[in-house]
């Protein structure tokens, strides 16, 4: 095991016999495709930094600037002190909302996934089918008017509660964890634990949880990004003085449409938390996705 460099990704590769090796060797074309993809992937992010560190006159130069300038600190200062954006409030709100929702979606989905994948119970198949059906329903768009009316009568409009509670429901999470549990936890393992006298909850904690951790990581990161990026519902139910970060950017965008450096600086800061999550858990994201597939 010690000789492996990237355990999550090399499991299959070792098996490829030498004879057919040429099939899996990267050709110059492969390298070109990958290089171009990465350049295209990174360019808009790089460009964000370029504009965010310039002045508005430079930003509208022709030809456009392609190197970062020295005004980043100043521009960020302007975003943070902007009276219309409430940027810091938005950032804090987004963090609270995304963390709360992620935690509960992961726990709820892991519970349900375990039950669907490895416990036999009456109506289980039908209930799972129901989850799959709800995945097809864009609840956010479909239920928007009654949900809004509900929030009005609960007097939650303007409060971040209104953005947290409706999102604890995530059919995709249940589906993912069901799939993952099926792949990662063999039936024999559950049966062995049962023979040992472990209760269902104990099995969940001692057997299922350690095995599905990569799946939980994938779901967690997915959920965090989904919630962090959500825009339509917060735009409806929150007020500009207590926004999420996306709503704060929207306020900037709507009021200062031509102040590019202001908008870009706000946008740049809004993706920083995601970049941190991505760098911290990047290996797990990819590893989880790959491993989940290899185990099938």
């Amino acid at each position, binding site marked *: 095991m010690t000789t492996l460099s990237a355990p999550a990704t090399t499991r299959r590769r070792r098996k490829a016999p030498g004879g057919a090796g040429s099939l899996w060797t990267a050709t110059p074309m492969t390298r070109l495709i990958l290089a171009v*993809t990465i350049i295209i*992937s990174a360019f808009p992010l790089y460009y*964000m930094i370029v504009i965010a560190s310039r002045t508005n006159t430079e930003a509208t130069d022709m030809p456009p600037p392609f190197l970062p300038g020295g005004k980043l600190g100043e521009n960020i200062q302007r975003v943070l002190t902007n009276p219309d954006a409430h940027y810091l409030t938005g950032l804090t709100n987004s963090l609270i909302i995304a963390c709360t929702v992620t935690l509960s979606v992961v726990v709820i989905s892991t519970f349900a996934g375990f039950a669907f994948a490895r416990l*036999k119970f009456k109506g289980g198949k039908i*209930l799972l089918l129901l989850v799959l059906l709800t995945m097809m329903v*864009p609840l956010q768009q479909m239920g928007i008017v009654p949900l809004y009316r*509900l929030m009005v009568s609960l007097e939650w409009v303007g409060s971040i509660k209104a953005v947290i509670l409706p999102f604890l429901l995530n059919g995709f999470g249940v589906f993912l964890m069901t799939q993952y549990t099926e792949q990662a936890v063999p039936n024999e393992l559950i049966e062995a634990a049962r023979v040992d006298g472990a209760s269902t909850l104990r099995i969940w904690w001692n057997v299922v949880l350690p095995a599905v951790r990569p799946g939980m990581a994938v779901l967690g990161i997915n959920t965090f990004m989904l919630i962090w990026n959500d825009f*339509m519902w917060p735009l409806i139910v929150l007020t500009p003085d207590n926004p999420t970060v996306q709503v704060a950017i*929207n306020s900037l965008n709507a009021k200062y449409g031509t102040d590019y450096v202001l908008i870009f600086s706000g946008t740049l800061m809004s*993706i920083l938390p995601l970049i941190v999550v991505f760098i911290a858990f990047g290996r797990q994201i990819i590893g989880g996705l790959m491993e989940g597939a290899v185990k099938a």
Partner: protein
Amino acid sequence: MSLHVDAGQPTRAPMPPSRRHVRQRPGRSFMTWLDLKAAPYLLVSPYYLLFLIFGLFPLGFTLYFSFFDYDLTGTVEWTGLGNYTAMLGDAAFWKAVVNTLAMFLIATIPQILLALMLANALNKRFKFQLGVRLGVLLPLVTSVVAVAVVFTQLYGRDWGVVNWVLGWFGADPIDWKAERLPSWIAIATMIDWRWTGYNAIIFLAGMQTIPKDLYEAASIDGASRRRQFWQITIPMLRPTMIFVVLNSTIGGLTLFSEPTTFYNGNVHGGTNSQFQTVSMFIFEQGFREFDYGYASAAAWLLFLLILIGSGINFLLIRRIGGNK
């Protein structure tokens, strides 16, 4: 760990601690019942409870509202199918439908093809594998609003990079927001930039489950790489393909953030609604015109659209390599 002898058995899953004693005692039938019969329901109940409150209830009420003339002033008046018949004759609604479908097609078809190509490249052996995969996933980290902000700048008429590059080839500057097709293309590229890498990683995961022996056998039979790709990879990817396409269908037909940000946060979708989607139409009717009944009816028609779209796509993909 030299070789997988028993490939069917996931060997890495942790074994239960064997030192635990057998604890089955008589006279605990209620606990046993609770543990074996009730536990599964308890485990799934949080999801269904939430679904009831935040899923089924709003869904039902959307249907209920859609039969009423219901607006901000508080007038609630039964109109039966009035909202629906009005909408079927509403040019603005149909315009939103056409915009949505067009952007969905312009975005999704190249995206799936590019993702497949990219996944195929990622499936080869090369250095810095993790780094490359992370690089491919990078756009996903960027928030939708951020993507839209940057691309809106790139597609700017006067100072945009895209027009500047097109200028090298002697093209006149395009006003990307003003016309239907250019705005659709601009928005479609935002979607593709964000999702192609993600879908490629999903495809890659699927590709790695395909037994390599299949390719080896095909190579021995003299099948070209291209042929192997179309006759082995694509049919074997069908489950993954269904997931990716259904996901894209739902995401594409409910498109909201990109076009909204493209027009500085306005849900009207351009001066003539040239890129207003159905989701934006619902938003506008419900929360700008405060016509709740009409917005609710539009929401159900959107659902119908998604059902039709998903159904068509599902059937299409089932037919790929249908002889399997």
